Structure formats: structure tokens, C-alpha cells
């Protein structure tokens, strides 16, 4: 009763404070959403790929930051291994796209459009590739650079037409783009190479023994099953830009704790006489402490409600103004931040609670 009424007594300050808290929380939500969006977007291409095995050059363990170059001669050898149903060669390389008004780098993937293996996990708009002079762009990339189906762009002196826009291909720092394998080889100037082979097993084939057999073909080959390869890429993503987001998130939490602590300390100082009166009238320390914690809960709770209400519009606005910013929010994130907020409330109440203990009822008589 007293906790809420005191806060509402200065409703303007209460509103400003609640908004301040909500901004801190929005920042944490935002970082979480980016973290989730990036970590998901970075590996979605691999996660949604149904290859049973990935064959790469020795010492390469992931697609994100490792280079793998294999000759096409391995393709026939791998196809002949017992238990292998089919293979899909893919050629990855980064390339600069010359757009009508801009230029930007993409992570080009050359794949065989006949099988579709190694292609984009999802086509949001337009079609898959049917000709060598076509390209599929990431949806967020296209939105950022205002590219549409049918638009033309230049890659390494070749003019390509945008055939489709893909989803799940935004890696935050760079986006995937897809062309035919033959065009990719043509562009790179070495027709006899690929980056890796996806291997699809026959029903009932034992993945481990097939992998061993492929490895035995050459010391230059390394083979990963789907889960291991996905984990390798997740690990790579998490050791990249993502830890920085964690640090910023933690800093946001510290700022929020300091902010709440400061606000509550000011409230305690302002209500010092009231607390002294209450203590003189017989209030327990616990009662006064309860007021401070309740005020902290009310402020933080109000901030949380505002933040949750503003979250979706904020993420939509971010996606609109910065489409390549891969953001993804979920109920889980709200739950995690709510728990973190509870910890922040307790931490931010410590200093005001200490201050409260130094308020003596005798002060009323002065």
C-alpha cells in the first residue's frame, strides 16, 4: 500500500523511472534477440541441410571461418564408397556484388540446382535457380539493398538476374547468396574444385563406417556427421561476435542494477522521515525493508511490462530500418530476462536496504 502510493505520489517521476528501466531491459532484450538471431541465422543453412555426412579438406572443421578446397576427382571416389546413395558438391567463396546503387560482399554458394542439395534452406520469394545467369539473394540482404526479383547485378564481370530471395541465410556479418555450381566454378577460374561434398547415405547404411571409408580414400579428407558438423559451426559462431553481445548484455544488467539502486536510494533518502515515523510508531525493520523491495519490484515490473509491450514493435522497426540485423525474440528470452531482472532487483535493493537500517526512529523527535 505505502510502497505503491509513495511511487504514485510522484507519478511523473514514476513514469520516467519505469521507462528508464524499460529502456535498459529493451537493450537486454535486443541483445538477446540479436544473439539468438545471429546464432540461429549463422548455422541455419547447415542445420536444415539433410546431408548425412560432410566431407571437407583435412583440418577444416566448419564452413564459417575455415577454408576447404577439394578436387572434383574425389567426387567419383566418394560416390563409389559402399553405402553412399548420392553426393552434392558445393563451392563456397566470398564475392563482391556490384548492385545498381551499391556494392556488397556475400558468401556465395555454388550448388547443383537439379538436385537442390546445398541450396538455400527456404525460398521466401521467387524461385530456385534454373539457369547459370541467375542468383538467389538472402531476403534481409535484398531488403537492405532494395533488390527485387528480376533485378540485375554484377559478380566478377558476370551479370546475374535475381531469381529468388532466401530465408535462413543471414549470418549477421555476411549473408549467403546462391548460384549454380557451374557458374561458381566458372567465376573462380578453377573448374576442377569444390569446397566440400555433402554425402547422402543409402537407407540402413552405417554412417560411421562410411565416414571411415571415405577418410581412408585420402589423407587430405576429413568427414563429419551432421550433428558434429553443426556443433562445429555453432561453436565457431559462438566464439566470434557473439561473446561481445554477452558482454554488452552483462554491462546492460550492471547499468540497470546501478540505475535501480540509485533511484531506490534517492527514494529512501526522500522517505527518510516517513520511515523514521513508521519505526517510531512500531514498524519493524522488515516492514520498511519490504517497502523498498516492493518499490523495486513495482518499478522493475512496470519497466518489464513496458519493455515487453515495446519489444515486438522495436524488433519490427529494427528489421525495417536494418534488414540484415538478424533478430529473433521468444518467450524463453522474456523468461530469462525476467529471472535476471529478479536478481537485479535484489542486488539493487542492497544499498537502499543498508541505508534504511541507518534510519532511526528518534529522528522524528528532532
Amino acid at each position, binding site marked *: *500500500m*505505502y510502497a505503491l*502510493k*509513495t511511487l504514485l*505520489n510522484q507519478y511523473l517521476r514514476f513514469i520516467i523511472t519505469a521507462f528508464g528501466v524499460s529502456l535498459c531491459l529493451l537493450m537486454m532484450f535486443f541483445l538477446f534477440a540479436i544473439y539468438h538471431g545471429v546464432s540461429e541465422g549463422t548455422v541455419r543453412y547447415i542445420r536444415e541441410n539433410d546431408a548425412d555426412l560432410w566431407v571437407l579438406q583435412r583440418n577444416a572443421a566448419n564452413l564459417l571461418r575455415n577454408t576447404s578446397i577439394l578436387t572434383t576427382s574425389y567426387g567419383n571416389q566418394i560416390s563409389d564408397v559402399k553405402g553412399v546413395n548420392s553426393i552434392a558438391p558445393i563451392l563456397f567463396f566470398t564475392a563482391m556484388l556490384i548492385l545498381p546503387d551499391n556494392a556488397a560482399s556475400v558468401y556465395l554458394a555454388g550448388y547443383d540446382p537439379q538436385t537442390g542439395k546445398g541450396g538455400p534452406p527456404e525460398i521466401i520469394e521467387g524461385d530456385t535457380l534454373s539457369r547459370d545467369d541467375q542468383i538467389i539473394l538472402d531476403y534481409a540482404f535484398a531488403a537492405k539493398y532494395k533488390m527485387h526479383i528480376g533485378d540485375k547485378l554484377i559478380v566478377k564481370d558476370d551479370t546475374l538476374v535475381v531469381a529468388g530471395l532466401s530465408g535462413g541465410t543471414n549470418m549477421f556479418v555476411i549473408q549467403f547468396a546462391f548460384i549454380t555450381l557451374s557458374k561458381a566454378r566458372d567465376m573462380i577460374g578453377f573448374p576442377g574444385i569444390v569446397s566440400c561434398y555433402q554425402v547422402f547415405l543409402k537407407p540402413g547404411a552405417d554412417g560411421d563406417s562410411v565416414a571411415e571409408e571415405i577418410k581412408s580414400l585420402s589423407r587430405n579428407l576429413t568427414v563429419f556427421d551432421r550433428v558434429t558438423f553443426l556443433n562445429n559451426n555453432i561453436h565457431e559462431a559462438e566464439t566470434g561476435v557473439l561473446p561481445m553481445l554477452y558482454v554488452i548484455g552483462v554491462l546492460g544488467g550492471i547499468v540497470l542494477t546501478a540505475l535501480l539502486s540509485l533511484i531506490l536510494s534517492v527514494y529512501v533518502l526522500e522517505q527518510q*522521515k*516517513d520511515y523514521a*515515523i*513508521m*519505526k*517510531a*510508531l*512500531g*514498524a*519493524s525493520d522488515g*516492514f520498511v525493508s519490504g517497502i523498498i523491495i516492493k518499490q523495486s519490484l513495482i518499478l522493475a515490473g512496470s519497466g518489464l511490462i513496458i519493455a515487453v509491450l515495446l519489444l515486438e514493435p522495436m524488433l519490427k522497426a529494427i528489421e525495417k530500418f536494418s534488414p540484415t540485423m538478424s533478430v529473433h525474440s521468444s518467450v524463453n528470452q522474456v523468461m530469462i530476462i525476467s529471472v535476471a531482472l529478479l536478481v537485479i532487483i535484489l542486488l539493487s535493493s542492497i544499498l537502499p536496504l543498508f541505508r534504511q537500517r541507518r534510519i*532511526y*526512529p*528518534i529522528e*522524528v*523527535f*528532532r
Partner: protein
Amino acid sequence: MNNTLSSAELVEVTKIFSRSGKETVALDNVSFRVNPRELVLLLGPSGSGKTTLLTLLAGLQEPTRGEAYIFGKRVQDYSPTALQKTRAARMGFIFQNFCLLDSLNVLDNVLLVMHFAGIPKTSARKHAAECLEKFGIGHLTHAYPPTLSQGEKQRVAVARAIANGAQLIIADEPTGSLATQQGMMIIEFLHNGVKEDGLSVVIASHDERITKFADRVHHLQDGRLIEQV
């Protein structure tokens, strides 16, 4: 000395305050007692030690030397919680500037004390309303202290002091900021409370007009009780 009968008592109490190495004697070997059904007036100029004496009677601080008793029990023998509960349930306070909580309305100001006293909510509400009616301020239930006149504030303060069923009322300069007639009304009420409800009341004041309502009058000067009438 009969500790069991007094509502509050100080026996040969000295209170010394130390600040920056300098000692100030606020009370010097004072013995003072408030009996049930008694209104005791403590007269003295500002700085004479009246307020210190009241705080000792309320158990808000302990004497440097001597003994303080509340309802027959040594203050030092109370646990902090027991002392707080005793203040909440058996004592009422009227402060010089009334000290109402501005963020709570009149009813909530009274209810808060009853909450401290552990009075159940439903009966507290009814009793609080009755208290306010008794002082002619029933219509101000939802008013906030900053909107009240000094006289109205005083009546709320007195209603708050008795709402918890207090046996001992401690009043510090209760008429200090009031017009003569308003001030005396409240003293009359406390006087009636002593006679009809068996309250113990101790009033610290420099207002000599209260003398006629007091069963005993003590004069305090420079921390010493110099006279008892």
C-alpha cells in the same frame, strides 16, 4: 520504586550524547514516572531535555546510566522485536508537527498504525473509521495530509495515537503549532481519555496552560528535574 505499576519509568537516568569527541549531558540523574490513569506534564524550555526524556520513556534509546522501564520491564530486557511490538500495540505517539505520512490518506495513516499493532484488517477499518468520527473528521477519511488544516492534522494525529488501543500516550509539544482553542481541545480529549479509558499520558511542552489538566507537573531545566507539582 514500584516498577510493576508504572506505565513508564526512568530511575536515576543520565543521558550523554557524544559528538566529535564532545560530550553533552541531555539528562542528568533524572527519575521520572508515569502511572496508569495519569496525565503527567513535563514543562521546560527548548533544549532542556524534554524530548530526550520522552524517547527514553518510549524505549527509542537507552540511558547512558540508570534504568528505564516500560510497562514494568527494564528496557534492556526487551528484545528489539519485543520493544517494537510493545510500541506498536501499547503506545501512541503525538509528534510536534504531527508527522503524518503525506502519501497516505487520513484513513490509511490510521490503519498503518493498526497494521503495526497486528489488528486484523476488517476490524481495523471499522475501528479507524470510528476513531475519525470521534474526532469529527470522519468526512476527511480520503483526504491527504497536505490538504488538511493544522487543527485537522492534529486530530488525525490523536486519532492515530489511540487507534491501536494504546495504554501509554507520549506527546511531544502537541499544541505547539496550533491556535489556543484547538490545542486545548486536544488536551481535554487526552485528559478525558485518562479519566474514562484509563490511559497514561505524558506530555512534553512549554505551554503552561496545560498545567490545569495534569495530575502531575515536572519542570525540566538543563537536563535536570527541578520541580514537581
